[in-house]
């Protein structure tokens, strides 16, 4: 065949492309992250920038090693998004090396070792989050009370540099704990949930995000806004987030009915920690989640249940990252068993009986 063959039909294409998808996800993350940067101040801004830069550098390095087109793949935005998600789950005043390590782990161990974009089994951001958490539990659970930019008592630019580059001890007065930690401590000390909640639980503040927590996780309202935007743009389907939220809420409600003194209710669980961010932005990651809507329902419900189990009965106060990774491992199994029915065939893949065969 001497003639060059042009690509096959179709000769039309939707407006979708990888860059656009990644850009829309980042756009959806922007409100909650901007709010996080605002209430946690300059240290959070540095941390955020460092994580993303480290992720991009790791991606460029890996692509160069693998002799892949660097500009094309860096430009797709997937590395920046992974870095962004790692940053969103970090304590806002974590030291610089946590950010750098997070970006490196997410891209190199979480993604490029598997073969790069589209090949990884586990969510890169969650791989980084879990490896950091088990390696550096102190740095990863030292939260701060909100100190909005330019407000009274907020660290200024140079103080912030000191915080990020290793002298957080100077500022130890401000360290605080997230609600999940606080309730856990209350229970450990023999108190009960209603007492602990009465002391620490402010649903309205959690809705807005004006509480101690990770950089991009605290504002339930803004995350929800971003999630709805993704649904509206059809970047994600409702199945994963709905199943995840419904599953944890249902279990929490039942347990709360059984023993309100030990088990907090559904609203507490849904608004706490990384649950909403996880439901809309992490469990919906294309690469590591099932490809069918039924599969996504199972994935979401499983992740929600695991989060509850981890939060309630293990040594970790928060479990979104673990739950997502465990469900990631199950994704191939879910995809193997849950498949759409093929036209003209039954669920088992055999041809449908025709009128000739019947009777």
């Amino acid at each position, binding site marked *: 065949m001497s*003639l060059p063959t*042009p690509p096959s039909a*179709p000769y039309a294409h939707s407006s979708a*492309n990888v860059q656009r998808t990644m850009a829309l996800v980042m756009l959806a993350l922007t409100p909650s992250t901007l709010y996080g940067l605002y209430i946690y101040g300059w240290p959070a801004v540095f941390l955020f920038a460092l994580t993303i830069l480290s992720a991009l550098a790791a991606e460029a390095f890996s692509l160069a090693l693998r002799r892949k087109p660097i500009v*094309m793949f860096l430009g797709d935005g997937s590395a920046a998004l992974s870095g962004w998600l790692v940053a969103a789950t970090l304590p806002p005043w974590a030291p610089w090396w946590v950010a750098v390590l997070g970006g490196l782990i997410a891209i190199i161990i979480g993604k490029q070792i598997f073969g790069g974009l589209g090949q990884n089994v586990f969510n890169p951001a969650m791989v980084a989050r879990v490896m950091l958490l088990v390696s550096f539990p102190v740095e990863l659970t030292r939260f701060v009370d909100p100190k909005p930019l330019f407000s009274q008592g907020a660290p200024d630019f140079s103080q912030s540099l000191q915080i990020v580059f290793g002298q957080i001890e100077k500022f130890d007065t401000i360290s605080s704990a997230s609600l999940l930690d606080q309730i856990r401590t209350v229970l450990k000390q023999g108190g009960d949930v209603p007492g602990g909640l009465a002391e620490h639980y402010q649903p309205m503040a959690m809705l807005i995000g004006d509480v101690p927590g990770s950089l991009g996780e605290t504002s339930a309202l803004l995350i929800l806004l971003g999630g709805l935007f993704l649904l509206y743009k059809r970047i994600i389907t409702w199945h994963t987030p709905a199943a995840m939220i419904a599953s944890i809420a249902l279990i929490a409600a039942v347990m709360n009915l059984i023993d309100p003194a030990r088990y907090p209710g559904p609203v507490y669980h849904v608004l706490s920690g990384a649950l909403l961010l996880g439901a809309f932005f992490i469990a919906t990651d294309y690469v590591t989640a099932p*490809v069918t809507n039924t599969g996504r329902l199972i994935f979401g419900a499983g992740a929600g249940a695991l989060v509850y189990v981890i939060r309630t009965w293990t040594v970790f106060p928060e479990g979104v990252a673990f739950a997502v990774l465990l469900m990631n491992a199950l994704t191939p199994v879910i995809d193997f068993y849950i498949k759409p029915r093929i036209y*003209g065939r039954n669920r088992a893949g055999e*041809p449908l009986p025709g009128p*000739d065969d019947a009777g």
Partner: protein
Amino acid sequence: MKLFSIRGGVHPSSHKSLSSEQPIRAIAMPELLHVPMRQNIGAPAEPVVAEGESVLKGQLIGESAGPVSAPVHAPTSGTVTAIGDYIAPHPSGLAGLTITIAPDGREAWAELPPPLDPETATGQEIADRVREAGIVGMGGAAFPSSVKLGLGTSRQLHSLILNGAECEPYLSADDRLMRERSEGIVGGAAIMMKALGIPRAIVAIEDNKPEAIAAMRAAASGHGAIEIAAVPSRYPMGSEKQLIQVVTGVEVPAGKLPAHAGVLVHNVATAHAVHDAVRFGRPLISRVVTVSGGAMAEPGNLEVLIGTPVADMISACGGLKGTPEQLLLGGPMMGVPLHDKAAPAIKGNNGVLALSRSEVNPGAHMPCIRCADCVAACPCGLQPLEMMIRIRNEKLSEAADVGLYDCILCGACSWVCPSHIPLVQYFNYARGALRDQDIVKQHQDKLKGYTQRREERLERIARAKEEARKARKAKMAAAKAAKAKAAAEEEATDA
């Protein structure tokens, strides 16, 4: 009427308004008509005229060569100037056997077979007439129509569906035909219903063609058994399997033909051709083609003779505007690339498009990110990404196991893929490569048979030799024994 739903599908922008308000018009007679012998699925026709021979309009020039084949007729009167290879309207850009006719401008008709009366003609007579007229599916697949009709005579069908969905963007040829020649289409439907004893017919038209729906409703008002269904505008509504599902709620069993579901589907243009063949004895020698696209100066709908070079159609529409990104035959979703504007129009070709770059919207081929938009878009419940991964790794038979042959190649998955992966090309490649493997396998099985036959023969010869040797030995032993016995007896008598 009650409609059912289909799975998946996509909504590409239709661009139909470029040409949909342009009435069907004829174009000037081309200098040469190049009539390919291969215009249908199945065996190509075989020429029955000689170079230099004069032919009349409608005269048989290519005979059908097998049960799945269709004859070809001279589109106009003139002289056969060449019989040989000529560039074919085919994605390969290869040439195929073609009869070239220089028109004499007289448009003198050959003697046509007498009209049939649909009221008295038998199903077999109608099917024969459709075969003689060289009618093939005019929606693009080009399957010989008489074969479909023949299937209908062997089993009872409950519905005839006329496909007027025209779900491909840009195309408006069927739309115009339904608006302007609705009587002929309804007539064709009535003929086929009568011939095969089908109790009802449904003309399915996408609801983005309200004028066509109205025209068809008016034409069918006298026929109680012919209904018009406005089906939702969603690609690929016009796919045979999907149209059957939306209209009847029944799925065609995998690997079977629509007749197995009690349904016969014909394109509206095919129905019109059937009408012409039965009522007037006219063979299929022309068709309506939409010439459109953002890079076409004056899009329109042309009635062209089979064999008209694409270049003539383009110049009849004011030529090209700038440099098109892609020239193609058919619609943008399933059409084939056009290598050379000299390629001719054939019976199954419903469009000539010149698309600008923004219309094609090409993009860099990126890795699959498993977004599963292709799974959601697939009207057949397949997982295109899974098939693609297997084909990329040359695991072709595994791809066949997960649905390669259930795929209708509609291109919805490629259209929606954010990574711009040419999924349909993977599927086309895999089917072709599997076919090649099959041919090689058959050849090797034949050779294996030769080897086995030889080994058996050698064994037989060896056995025969061995037996002969044994027999000789036994004979010799017997002779010896007899000799000894005789000697002994002799000794005894001597004693």
